[in-house]
């Protein structure tokens, strides 16, 4: 069985920075990703990032992905794409190909490097960075072709250059709903409306303003009642909701749309962490169930770490920092530290606090703090 110092599951911002920091400190490092292309959500993020210079503000996500992959390559991190880790036990990862050999995924340049259909890898340390998953919304007609997650629409449009539809209803006015609406406009679609069940736009005002001046209405206190169509979505029926979330009779509106995108939040993708046996904690502010971890990102399973959206749904900027932290701590627990690691850890923690400040992000800081306090009790002492 092949053995490595560090196995990382997920080649998004958290997984890549974790792998880079681990490899820099001399760990043999392997990264797995189930998608045909590495980079996680970054490769869909064609917009310029917020944040500060050290968080690559003003740089587009897609460029950050390219830089991280380049860095990973120069640190001799091996990235396997198109492979899925489907079980973890006793520090052994069971890995299988995600795609059949003749699927489009396997013909890409970064094709699955798995020598056989299945592989078991022994890893001294494991970092889970499996990201988030989109929440679903159920309504009559939600299984019609043309109803999809906003993230799916973004993947179609920005990664594969396929516009999912021409007239689109976006359900949810958080940052994902607003940003994806803007990007679908850029791709040439019409956004018929963005609807939001709460009384307020959840995402940043500047993202809302961009699509408003492009003529897109944002209807707060509105929900979708049903999608209609024979073989695919042909229209959506929406209505105003009252303070107790009930549709107001007579406020129904029919919108002629061919696509309905759902952007009603993300939750940590905990399936693998759960399978591996990590204790979870329910934290609504972080998106739901999250693996409990301590300040070093280590879970209740000694030697298994988490980072990024899996440890609480946040931003790419926080994922990059948490990945770094997990990578440094995992390497250090193997005796592979770099000079100045303590300073580096303190600097990362300071940047994380700064990213989690302000009215938008302070609730996450509080939730994260609570999670870490539980982790300090439940996880092994360093």
């Amino acid at each position, binding site marked *: 069985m092949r053995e490595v110092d560090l196995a990382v599951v997920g080649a998004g911002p958290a997984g890549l920075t974790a792998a880079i920091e681990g490899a820099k400190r001399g760990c043999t490092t392997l990264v797995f990703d189930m998608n045909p292309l590495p980079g996680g959500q970054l490769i869909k993020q064609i*917009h310029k990032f917020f944040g500060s210079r050290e968080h690559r503000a003003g740089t587009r996500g897609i460029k950050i992905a390219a830089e991280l992959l380049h860095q990973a390559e120069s640190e001799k991190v091996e990235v396997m794409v198109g492979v899925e880790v489907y079980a973890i036990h006793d520090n052994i990862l069971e890995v299988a190909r995600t795609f059949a050999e003749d699927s489009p995924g396997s013909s890409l340049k970064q094709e699955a490097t798995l020598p056989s259909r299945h592989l078991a890898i022994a890893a001294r340390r494991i970092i889970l960075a499996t990201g988030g998953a989109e929440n679903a919304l159920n309504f009559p007609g939600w299984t019609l072709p043309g109803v999809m997650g906003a993230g799916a629409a973004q993947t179609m449009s920005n990664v594969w250059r396929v516009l999912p539809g021409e007239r689109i209803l976006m359900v949810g006015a958080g940052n994902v709903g607003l940003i994806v609406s803007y990007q679908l406009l850029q791709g040439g679609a019409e956004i018929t409306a963005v609807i939001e069940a709460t009384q307020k736009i959840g995402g940043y005002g500047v993202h809302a303003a961009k699509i408003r001046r492009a003529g897109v209405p944002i209807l707060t206190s509105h929900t979708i009642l049903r999608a209609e169509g024979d073989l695919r979505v042909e229209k959506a029926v929406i209505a105003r909701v009252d303070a107790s979330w009930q549709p107001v009779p007579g406020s129904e509106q029919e919108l002629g749309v061919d696509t309905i995108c759902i952007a009603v939040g993300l939750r940590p993708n905990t399936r693998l962490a759960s399978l591996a046996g990590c204790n979870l904690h329910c934290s609504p502010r972080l998106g739901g169930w999250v693996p409990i971890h301590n300040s070093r990102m280590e879970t209740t399973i000694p030697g298994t770490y988490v980072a990024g959206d899996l440890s609480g749904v946040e931003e790419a900027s926080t994922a990059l920092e948490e990945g770094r932290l997990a990578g440094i701590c995992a390497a250090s627990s193997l005796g592979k530290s770099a000079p100045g690691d303590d300073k580096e850890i303190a600097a990362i923690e300071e940047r994380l606090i700064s990213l989690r400040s302000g009215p938008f992000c302070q609730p996450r800081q509080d939730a994260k703090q609570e999670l870490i306090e539980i982790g300090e009790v439940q996880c092994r002492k360093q």
Partner: protein
Amino acid sequence: MSQAVKIRGYPSPQELENAPGYPSPERLEKGPVAVIECIEEIPCNPCEQACPQHAITIGKPITNRPHLDEDKCIGCGLCVARCPGLAIFLVDLTYGKGKASVAFPYEYLPLPEKEQTVQAVNRAGEPVCPGTVIMVQNSKVNDQTPVVTIAVPREYASEIRGIARIRKER
């Protein structure tokens, strides 16, 4: 904390007036100036580094709203393409002949062309009046955020913040 922006999706005149990045009427009368329509406390500061005159300050914490030192601002417009939120505009009320110029980021294809007549729109995307394209900047420093400058009647300069998207011929 802002309210109108969370319901309508764009700031009200009152919210803009209270924002530290929005220039005074006196400064607007003097010539080109950055108009920063960033009114929420979000963690972001590239505008601070974008300004060669150090006219924009965020400082610490990073969630501070951008403050414009309107006397230092020379109206170069370098901040317009750098704002990830596309929330900075350049307004020149002294453009001349009863016209003002308004510059805004425009990340759609096809781009308008110089001297083209375009439909100027307000913050809600509603048509206000025709405008004439003066300039389309899309150099390397824009990093694929082109900045379009249009001339419009002076009285509409405070409400016009973009143009109707130009649709490709099908």
